[in-house]
């Protein structure tokens, strides 16, 4: 009996061990074929990029590559919003965009996976760690650097010169010269930036129209006016209920948002960006004396009870509740605030947009981060046809920005009847400012200068809204104040024309000291800001500056200037 059980146990133990060995072996077996091609392929595909270089400075744009015949296949990874984007029967690999690209350019795009934006970066990290990479995909700045250092992405310098369309180049220019520059490594273009709309994401001052008219106010010319309006709104009982229950300026706990940043920019204070000082050196905006001035004003507002005593713990939803219940009549928002959230919050009350005024005679400059939409488009070094990304970009531009047909709009952009956002299926997207352009085009038609057919469907839609507003349907006030003659669109034009921007001067990838210390520095900065506003001594600011320098700020500044010197 003991003998038998012993034998069984031994057999059992060895079975377990054997099984673990088999599993390991299994995984090895399956693993190899997937990693092998990536390591053996470089020799076969190394030729296309260098061979096509007929000295980069040749006349720009020979245009897109001709249709691939037979069709080629490219793989990618997709990131999207959680929203309906397919009609019946469509999939990630079979939808209006993939079909159009296949039929027009002979390129089959296959997505190896598709994930919501929130998890995208993590998923790419996992993918990079597992040694797998699709032909092209969007990566974050630090992943871009990592992939470049690992030598796994293709040099796009020559193919960009040769194949990028004029419209693509135009969008790169519009985004700002530093954007394309940031996509270069050692002077070679290693990615196509996913250009953003930072220039139209800057602050706009929104003021409730009925309160504005009640006190016969005029457009704020300086920050002093803004403070005066705040006082009026907080103390003169704008809602007429006899109770001092209104606030002068809407603010909430997220200090990185326009509500806060807009106010700071009015005082020439810049949060979290790098600016040039008088000597041409780069310095952090966080520690400049203008920040102290702005904080002193906020402190005064807070002390008088003109901003919500609880703003430091309130999120945007709480601010929106205050707006909806008629307690807040002025705040720094963005160019689209009228459509969302104001239209939903106060459907009957109109709001007026104003450009951010300045504290002195020098016009305010609005800070903008590096103008990319979080990502860079990179191409796998082993991709056989890196130039194929340009027709894919062109498809996006043609369908999303330059299309003037309603039918195509429904088909490729947004189907309002079935509520399907087709545009999310485009394999490559790059964004461009469009508010200023929309405003100008719509106004021209509104004034009778041009025919409606020249407009894009979106512009036509806005125009229809404005016409309804002018005809007396006040429900469309949001369209009117975003695109009409006195709108945030007009301010967008003004900002662009006067170049009222303060772009961050540091556009490189995060430096070593930044990776290590910046998170902590940001934390003590935001703590200091809140402390000062809530009534702390202004010396807190000076203390913070000292601390900031000691805790790595000086080190980061040195690195940033080193980077800056290397770009000249």
């Amino acid at each position: 009996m003991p003998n038998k059980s012993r034998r069984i146990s031994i057999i059992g133990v060895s079975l377990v061990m054997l099984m673990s060995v088999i599993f390991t072996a299994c995984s090895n077996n399956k693993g190899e074929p997937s990693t092998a091609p990536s390591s053996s392929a470089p020799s076969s595909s190394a030729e296309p990029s260098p061979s096509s270089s007929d000295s980069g400075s040749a006349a720009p744009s020979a245009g897109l590559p001709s249709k691939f015949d037979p069709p080629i296949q490219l793989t990618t990874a997709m990131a999207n919003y959680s929203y309906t984007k397919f009609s019946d029967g469509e999939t990630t690999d079979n939808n209006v965009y993939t079909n159009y690209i296949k039929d027009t350019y002979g390129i089959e795009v296959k997505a190896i996976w598709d994930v919501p934006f929130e998890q995208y970066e993590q998923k790419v990290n996992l993918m990079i760690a597992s040694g797998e990479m699709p032909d092209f995909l969007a990566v974050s700045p630090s992943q871009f650097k990592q992939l470049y250092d690992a030598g796994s992405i293709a040099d796009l310098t020559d193919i960009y010169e040769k194949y990028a369309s004029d419209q693509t180049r135009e969008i790169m220019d519009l985004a700002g010269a530093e954007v394309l520059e940031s996509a270069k490594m050692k002077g070679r273009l290693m990615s196509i930036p996913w250009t953003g709309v930072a220039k139209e994401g800057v602050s706009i001052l929104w003021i409730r129209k009925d309160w504005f008219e009640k006190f016969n106010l005029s457009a704020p010319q300086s920050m002093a006016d803004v403070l005066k309006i705040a006082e009026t709104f907080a103390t003169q009982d704008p809602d007429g209920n006899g109770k001092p229950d209104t606030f002068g300026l809407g603010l909430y706990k997220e200090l990185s948002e326009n509500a806060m940043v807009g106010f700071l920019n009015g005082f020439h204070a810049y949060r979290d960006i790098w600016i040039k000082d008088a000597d041409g050196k780069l310095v952090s905006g966080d520690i400049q004396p203008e920040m102290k001035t702005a904080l002193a004003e906020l402190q005064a507002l807070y002390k008088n009870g003109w901003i919500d005593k609880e703003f430091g713990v309130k999120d945007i939803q709480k601010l929106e509740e205050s707006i909806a219940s008629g307690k807040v009549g002025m705040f720094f928002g963005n160019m689209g605030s009228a459509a969302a959230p104001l239209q939903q919050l106060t459907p009957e009350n109109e709001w007026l947009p104003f450009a951010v005024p300045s504290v002195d005679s020098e016009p305010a400059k609005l800070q903008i981060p590096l103008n990319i939409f979080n990502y860079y488009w990179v191409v796998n070094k082993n991709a056989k046809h890196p130039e194929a990304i340009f027709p894919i970009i062109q498809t996006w531009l043609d369908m999303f920005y330059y299309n003037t047909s309603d039918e195509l709009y429904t088909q490729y952009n947004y189907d309002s009847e079935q509520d399907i956002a087709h545009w999310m299926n485009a394999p490559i997207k790059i964004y461009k400012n469009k508010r200023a352009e929309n405003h100008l085009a719509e106004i021209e038609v509104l004034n009778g200068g041009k025919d409606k057919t020249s407009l894009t469907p979106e512009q036509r839609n806005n125009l229809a809204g404005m016409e309804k507003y002018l005809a007396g349907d006040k429900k469309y006030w949001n369209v009117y104040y975003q695109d009409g003659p006195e709108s945030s669109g007009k301010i967008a034009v003004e900002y662009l024309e006067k170049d009222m921007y303060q772009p961050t001067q540091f556009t490189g990838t995060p430096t070593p000291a930044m990776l290590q210390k910046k998170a902590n520095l940001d934390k003590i900065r935001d703590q200091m800001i809140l402390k000062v506003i809530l009534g702390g001594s202004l010396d807190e600011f000076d203390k913070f500056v000292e601390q900031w320098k000691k805790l790595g700020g000086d080190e980061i500044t040195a690195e940033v200037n080193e980077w800056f010197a290397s770009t000249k």
Partner: protein
Amino acid sequence: MVERATWSRKLFLNFNYALLAFISFLCLFPIVQMIAISFSSGTAVASGRVTIFPVEFTTDAYRYVLRNKAFMDAVWVSVERVLLGCSLQMLLLVLIAYPLSKEVSAFRHRTLYVWFFMITILFSGGLVPTYLVIKNTGLLDSIWALVIPGAVPVFSVVLMLNFFRSLPKEMGEAAFIDGAGHWTTLIKIYIPLSKPGIATLLLFSVVGHWNSWFDGIIYMNSPSNYPLQSYLQSIVLMKQDSSALSVLDQSILANLSDRTLKSAQIGLGAFPILLVYPFLQKYFMKGIVLGSVKE
């Protein structure tokens, strides 16, 4: 046993009830409010007028959600996952716990086997190695990636093992004397007697499978294969990127960020799991082994 209620005892009881009622209110309030929000109109919610009762009652949100194919698909994946995952877990659980519940004298290498399982509680491979294992074993993007990695819940094995041990050993021995083997003893004696334990662990298993979202997001290649909680996670935590705002048609995003819609989906997501409790409740009574052995 009649209790003599002194005034201090009464005071204590009343205070106790009040405190417990307050605590349960704190637990229930968020859920009640969520349900109220899901039945209220969007403007009422945005202006913060909804507390416990719906304001401007509407069922629009539910109608929208039930028509939403993505949501229904996700529910189906979750159901599939729970059915597959829980039956596999319970099967392996019992099969592992039974031999490990024996004494070393009856099962010589028991200690080794116990460590073989326990070690996984102490150490794990970490995210990337685990991902590589899933990828290289070809499980990626299939329902099995959600089921197999957690197929042996070691902690539950320990609980089950102790439950088996708490049963009188003599009953197993009696079965052996009557000529039953291990299989018969397990199936005819141990399992029927362990219903309360199994029901509890089944509940753990169902709740665990229903609620986990991270593996779905990591192992699935397309949102259409997400289980419900992964889908909800991606909806509820959606970034409100102001730079994206100006590109997106804003009415779309307003639609998406709608709190009533989110509440309705979260509520519907929690509903099935609430249904499971009453059905398992009756097994929570102690297993009746009293009097089966005369000592």
